C-alpha cells in the first residue's frame, strides 16, 4: 500500500537517492546530504510545531508500506521570503505613446518583484521513476491541498507553485544565457545549484534591479519567458486542473512561470467530503482503477496520513475501510476522515456516493462549501 506521511529522518537515504536520480533542474531538492538533512529536520520541527508557524516547511513522503521505503516526496512551504528575500520577475507591459506622432508602442517589460513574499508555496515534488503512473503523482501532489485546507491558519490565502522553465539537456537556459549570465559569471546549472543550496538571495543581489525591456533580449530568450520545461508540462496541467493559473510572475533565472490559486478555490479543497471511518472486516477489493479511487486523509496535523480507497466505499455518513487502511491512517472506527477525488474523473463517481446525509459536514467547518455545491444541483 502507498501511504502519505510526514517525512522523517530515516528517509534521508531514500530521499538522497531520488534527488540524485532526478539530476539537474530540481532546484529545491539538490542531491546534497547535509542540505536534505536540514530540510528534514525543519519539516520535523514544523509538524511538531516547534518552530514559528511562518517558518514551517511541511514535507510529505510517499511510503511503500510493503518495502518500508519512501518513493516520493512533496512539500508545502508555509511562507516564502521571510527568512531571505524571494525574487521573481513580473512580466508586464510598458506603453510609450505619442499622440502628436501617432505612435503607440507596447513593450513587454520584466520588473523585479518580491510579490510572493509571505505566501504559501507548494514545492519539492519528486516521485521515484518506478512509481510513476497509476495516480501516484496525483496523490503526492493533491494530498497537500487537503492538508492545506484542514490547517488554513498555518498558510496564506493564496498558494503558488514555481514551475521549472525551459533549459536544454546540457543545462543551458536561453533566458539565463541572455540575461542572468550577463550579470553573473556562471552557467545556469551552477547558478541553479547555488540557488538550491539556499544562495538564491545572494545571486539575486547580483541580478539587474531595473526593469528589463524584452525587445532588448534575443528572440530565443523572449520565447521561453513564462514557458515550462517539457518535463514539467504534466505537473502544470495537473495544477491547472486544480484551478491554478499563471499569475504574471516568472523565475528570475529560467523564466519558468509561477502559477497560483486561492486555497478555497482549489478543486481538491472544493470537492472534499467529510465522513466517519468505519472499519469493516469483510474484504474490500482495492485493485480498482485510479479513476475509481479517492484520497482519504486522517486530518491529523502532526501525523498526517493519506492513502486511497475505492470510491464505492463511501456511504452517506461513513466510509468503509479495511483494518489495514485504518492502521495505515492511524485511525479507528468513528474517527473523522476527509475524502477527495484522486483523478479528474473521480468527481462523478463521488457524486453517486454522496447520498443526502452530510453528518460529517456538521462537525466540519469546511462542510459548507460542499453544501453549496449540493444546493446548485
Amino acid at each position, binding site marked *: 500500500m502507498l501511504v502519505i506521511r510526514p517525512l522523517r529522518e530515516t528517509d534521508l537515504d531514500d530521499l538522497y537517492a531520488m534527488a540524485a536520480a532526478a539530476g539537474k533542474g530540481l532546484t529545491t531538492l539538490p542531491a546534497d546530504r547535509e542540505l536534505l538533512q536540514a530540510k528534514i529536520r525543519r519539516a520535523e520541527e514544523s509538524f511538531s510545531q516547534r518552530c514559528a508557524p511562518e517558518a514551517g516547511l511541511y514535507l510529505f513522503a510517499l511510503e511503500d508500506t510493503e518495502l518500508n521505503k519512501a518513493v516520493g516526496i512533496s512539500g508545502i512551504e508555509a511562507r516564502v521570503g521571510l527568512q531571505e528575500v524571494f525574487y521573481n520577475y513580473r512580466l508586464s507591459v510598458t506603453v*510609450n505613446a505619442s499622440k502628436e506622432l501617432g505612435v503607440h508602442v507596447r513593450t513587454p517589460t520584466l520588473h523585479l518583484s518580491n510579490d510572493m513574499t509571505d505566501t504559501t508555496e507548494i514545492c519539492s515534488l519528486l516521485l521515484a521513476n518506478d512509481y510513476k503512473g497509476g495516480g501516484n503523482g496525483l496523490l503526492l501532489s493533491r494530498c497537500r491541498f487537503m492538508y492545506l485546507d484542514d490547517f488554513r491558519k498555518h498558510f496564506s490565502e493564496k498558494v503558488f507553485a514555481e514551475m521549472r522553465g525551459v533549459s536544454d539537456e546540457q543545462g543551458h537556459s536561453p533566458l539565463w544565457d541572455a540575461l542572468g549570465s550577463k550579470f553573473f559569471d556562471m552557467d545556469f546549472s551552477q547558478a541553479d545549484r547555488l540557488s538550491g543550496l539556499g544562495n538564491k538571495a545572494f545571486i539575486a543581489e547580483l541580478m539587474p534591479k531595473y526593469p528589463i525591456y524584452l525587445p532588448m533580449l534575443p528572440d530565443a530568450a523572449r520565447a521561453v519567458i513564462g514557458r515550462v520545461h517539457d518535463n514539467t508540462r504534466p505537473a502544470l496541467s495537473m495544477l491547472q486542473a486544480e484551478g491554478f493559473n499563471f499569475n504574471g510572475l516568472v523565475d528570475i533565472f529560467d523564466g519558468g512561470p509561477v502559477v497560483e490559486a486561492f486555497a478555497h478555490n482549489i478543486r481538491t479543497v472544493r470537492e472534499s467530503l467529510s465522513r466517519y471511518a468505519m472499519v469493516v472486516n469483510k474484504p474490500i477489493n482495492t485493485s480498482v482503477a485510479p479513476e475509481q479511487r479517492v484520497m482519504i486523509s486522517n486530518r491529523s496535523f502532526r501525523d498526517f496520513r493519506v492513502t486511497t480507497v475505492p470510491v464505492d466505499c463511501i456511504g452517506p455518513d461513513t466510509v468503509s475501510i479495511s483494518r489495514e487502511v485504518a492502521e495505515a491512517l492511524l485511525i479507528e472506527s468513528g474517527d473523522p476522515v476527509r475524502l477527495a477525488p484522486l483523478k479528474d474523473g473521480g468527481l462523478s463517481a463521488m457524486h453517486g456516493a454522496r447520498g443526502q446525509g452530510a453528518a460529517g459536514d456538521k462537525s466540519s467547518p469546511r462542510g459548507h462549501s460542499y453544501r453549496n455545491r449540493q444546493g446548485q444541483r
Partner: protein
Amino acid sequence: MWRVRPAKLDDLKPILRIVGAQAARLSSTLPKTEENLTRAIEQTQASLSPTHNNRKPRRFLFVLENTDTGEIGGTAGIDSRAGNGQPFYNYRRDYLIHASHELSVSRRVEVLYPSHALTDLSLLRSFTIKDELRKTSAFELLARARILFIASHRDWFSSHTVVEIQGIQHPDGRVPFWDSLGRHFFNMDFESADQYSGQLSKTFIAELMPPNPIYVTLLSDEAQQAMGQGHPLAEPSQQLLRQEGFHPGCFLDIFDGGPVLEVRTDSLKTLVTCQLKTLHGSHHDQGDQCLIAAGEGDQFRCLLAPVSETLSGDVKVPVNTWHGLEKTAGDQVRISPL
C-alpha cells in the same frame, strides 16, 4: 573674404541648399524644412533684439558668408540654454557595483540613466559647412566665431557649455545605437526621430523614451562599441572643440550614442585668450592671421584678417577688413589668433 554674422531671413534659400546637399551624410540639429528654418532665423533675430526678455532662452543661428559674392558657406548655432526651456535629454553613462559578500563576487555593471542634467547649459549646435570649405580656415572661423560671440555677450550664457557630437552611422544609414535601443520604443527609423527632435517639442521624447535605466550589457555589441564614439566626419570639429577645452564627460546622445563634450564656459580657450583692441588700418597684408570680431547683437561680425599689433593695445588690419566688420578706426574689436 569669409565672415560670420547672424542669420537673416534672406539666407533662408541658400541655407536650405546646403542642408539639401548635406542631409544624407551628416545630420545636424539644423532645421531641414523651410518652415522650421524660418522659425530658427526669427528666433535668432528676436534673441539679438535689445528688447528680448532676459529670462527667456536665446537661440542663435550664424552664417558663414562670402562678402565678395554673397555666397553662404555654412551655419553654426548656439542655444543660450540647452532645451530652450524644455527638458534636454541625454543618457548618463554610469556604473553600479553588483556585489555579494557571501559569494565573494563583485561585478561592475554599466548603466545608462536618462538625464536632464545638461538642461539650461549653453549648447553649441547646428554646425554645417560646405564640403569644399571643410579643409580651409573658414572652418575654424565658423566654429570659433561663436565663442567670440559668447565672449562679447557673456551674460547671456551659462556657466558651462556643451556640444553634442554626431555618433556612429554606417554609410547605409544604419545607426547601431539606435537600432539596439531607441528603435524598439520610438517605432521609427533614426532619420525620422532625429528630424522630430530637431523640429517638434521634446514632449515626444518624454512620451516615447524608456523611462528606466538601460543595462549596457543588453545592448548589441555594435551599439556598445558606438557609445561615446563620434562620427568620423565629425572628427575635425571634435578636434577643434577639444583644443577649445571641450572634453567628453559621461553624457551621450539618446539617439545615436554620440558623445557630449563639456567645458566651463569661462575656460574656453578662445574666450580666455581673446583680447579687446582698438581698430586701426594698415595698408599691407602682413601679420598673423587672427579671428577678429566686432559688434554687439545683430551687428556681430567675425572674420579672418592679418593683424599687426602696436604697443598701445591697438591693432592694425587691412582697411578693407573694416567693411567686413562694419567698423572704422577707433572702434573696439576682439581678436584671437588662428
